[in-house]
């Protein structure tokens, strides 16, 4: 830096001069770092970029241009997006119908469970056992429960019959599958939600909770007025995580709803068959569908982004 002249009139410095100055100060290490970063960014972005440009291409443009190249004026079309939206919109509604309640309920149940396992003073040994049982739930793979899960919903709890009064109102009884999905995802989500909230509640000040107890608040009131309002950042983490998991899950939907022709078919089921036919794959339609189906998860990330960062840091 010793050879650069001291700046006396910074305000009038030209862009080129500033650029040269920046270049002068850049070392080989810095340059290397940027090359690696740019390369890594490109590596991760190319598939997404390819998908995005493909979704706007006509059939001929897909054959004639490279996957990552833009379509060009003649090859540009919004038709595929139109088709994808038409095909998926009803599935979006169905997906939201179970993903939103399942996310909210599992997060809330996880939070209450974690509170019960962290704050009140019960015997340490009981807490450990209960916690261990809950945590064990995280490690049960989806595939392992598919058979018992189908048996449970088809033989033991038959919602199609139990809720017959609902179907009598004109709701197609395929929607029993949606309710089954809500309950299944809540049950499957409780362990991880509990673990996440417990980690967070462990860091809360004991004295603050004790102070609230001495102020006359019952355990329930302490949760309602102290712990819950302070859980915002962790709720953001859990909501994003759970929503993405549940929205993207194909396995449970295949087992519990199964057909894409069902009026209750979630978006993932319809997407699985979108653009595939005997004549071959319609890449543009599949890409448009994939991007459209991913929009809600993207929205959730953007919506809770700030709290998410805070919660992850905590």
């Amino acid at each position, binding site marked *: 830096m010793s050879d650069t002249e001291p700046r006396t009139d910074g305000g009038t410095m030209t862009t080129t001069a500033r650029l040269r100055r920046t270049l002068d100060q850049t070392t080989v290490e810095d340059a290397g770092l940027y090359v690696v970063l740019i390369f890594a960014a490109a590596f991760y972005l190319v598939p997404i970029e390819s998908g995005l440009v493909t979704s706007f291409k006509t059939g001929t443009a897909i054959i004639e241009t490279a996957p990552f190249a833009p379509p060009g004026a003649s090859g540009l079309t919004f038709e595929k997006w139109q088709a994808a939206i038409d095909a998926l919109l009803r599935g979006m509604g169905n997906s939201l119908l179970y993903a939103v309640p399942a996310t909210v309920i599992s997060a809330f149940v996880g939070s209450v469970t974690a509170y019960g396992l962290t704050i009140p003073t019960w015997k340490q040994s009981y807490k450990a056992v209960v916690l261990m049982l809950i945590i064990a739930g995280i490690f049960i793979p989806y595939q392992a429960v598919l058979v018992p899960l189908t048996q449970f919903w088809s033989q033991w709890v038959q919602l199609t019959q139990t809720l017959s009064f609902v179907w009598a109102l004109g709701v197609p009884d395929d929607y029993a599958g949606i309710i089954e999905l809500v309950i299944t995802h809540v049950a499957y989500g409780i362990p991880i939600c509990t673990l996440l909230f417990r980690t967070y509640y462990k860091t809360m*000040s004991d*004295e*603050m909770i*004790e*102070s*609230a*107890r*001495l*102020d*006359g*608040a*019952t355990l329930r*009131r302490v949760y309602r*007025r*102290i712990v819950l*309002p*302070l859980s915002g950042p962790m709720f953001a983490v859990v909501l994003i995580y759970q929503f993405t998991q549940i929205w993207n899950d194909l396995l449970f939907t295949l087992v519990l709803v199964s057909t894409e022709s069902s009026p209750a078919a979630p978006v993932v089921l319809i997407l699985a068959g979108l653009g595939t036919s005997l004549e071959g794959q319609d890449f543009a339609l599949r890409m448009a569908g994939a991007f459209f189906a991913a929009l809600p998860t993207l929205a959730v990330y953007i919506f809770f982004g700030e709290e998410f960062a805070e919660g992850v840091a905590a």
Partner: protein
Amino acid sequence: MATLELDSITKTFQDGDEEIVAVDDVSLSIDDGEFLVVVGPSGCGKSTTLRMVAGLETITSGTLSIDNRVVNDVKSQDRDIAMVFQSYALYPHMSVRQNMSFGLEESTDLPDDEINRMVSETGEMLGISNLLDRKPSDLSGGQQQRVALGRAIVRDPEVFLMDEPLSNLDAKLRAEMRTELQRLQNDLGVTTVYVTHDQTEAMTMGDRIAILDGGELQQVATPLECYHEPTNQFVASFLGEPSMNFFDVTLEGDRLVGEVFEYSIDESVQSDLGGVTDLRLGIRPEAVELVDEGGEHAFETTVDVVEPMGDENTVYLHFDPDADPETAATLVATIDGFNRVSEGDTVTARVPEDAIHVFDRATGEALHNRSMEDAAAQIDL
């Protein structure tokens, strides 16, 4: 407002197979409106005792009564107790006003406007009216401390419990708050138990102080009694800064013989000793006098270190000028700040007989203390 009675309170913790006694058979009786300071070194069980009174820890054995009602099995929230924590424990998502009204909302059926009025009044009393709408994170440490205090005061509880409430403040603010807390407690007249490890706080604030060590109660008395008539060596050494000088001595006839000096005692002191010969002589630094010429109870000493404090000097004296300063017996004396002595000087230190304490070396128990009357008379001089 209430009396508080601890009767043989014991707390044990289980650590693996080992049983740890945190609080051992502590009995205390606190009068209505009294300010009791519980003091002791860290780990002495003082906080555990306070937490048992609050109901945050179970009591292993013994009974705890508030206003003659046994509350061992009464939950914290039903004991009508307010506690101020060292960390203040404010609710970070609530404004100061909400922090202060929380307790009233949870423990009473008062209407909102009444609660608001009480919070505003308390805020005014503590000089935090202008902070009521701020969040705790926007406040300084001292302001947070006031809010924590306000949160306790506004509830007008039977008993105040304070767990080292001033130890997170800087020295100047701490001294101010000490005075203010005392004034507040006087005005409100609420029975208060105040836990601290700071002997200055104990001496200056309490109506009485209870000194704990190793889970056991050492002495409960007024600050001056504890200072001048300690029941044992622990109390004597814990109170006072710089702390009391101790010398191992053996009784031989009418003399206490130490490693580097001999000290003659008269009959009244001898009779107090009850035939114990392995003794420890104690003398407070401020009782040591520097005199011009020798005589009885005067020793020739060399000044090792002088610590000027402004109003007074703390001097470290050695009996043997050639001794290794690291290991030699040291006599600490506090003398007038204008008394110019410097390192290496030879001075004559007198240890007046009416100011000495004698302890049993084996048990640490005090056999002879200076009398309070003598001490008071000396202060009058």
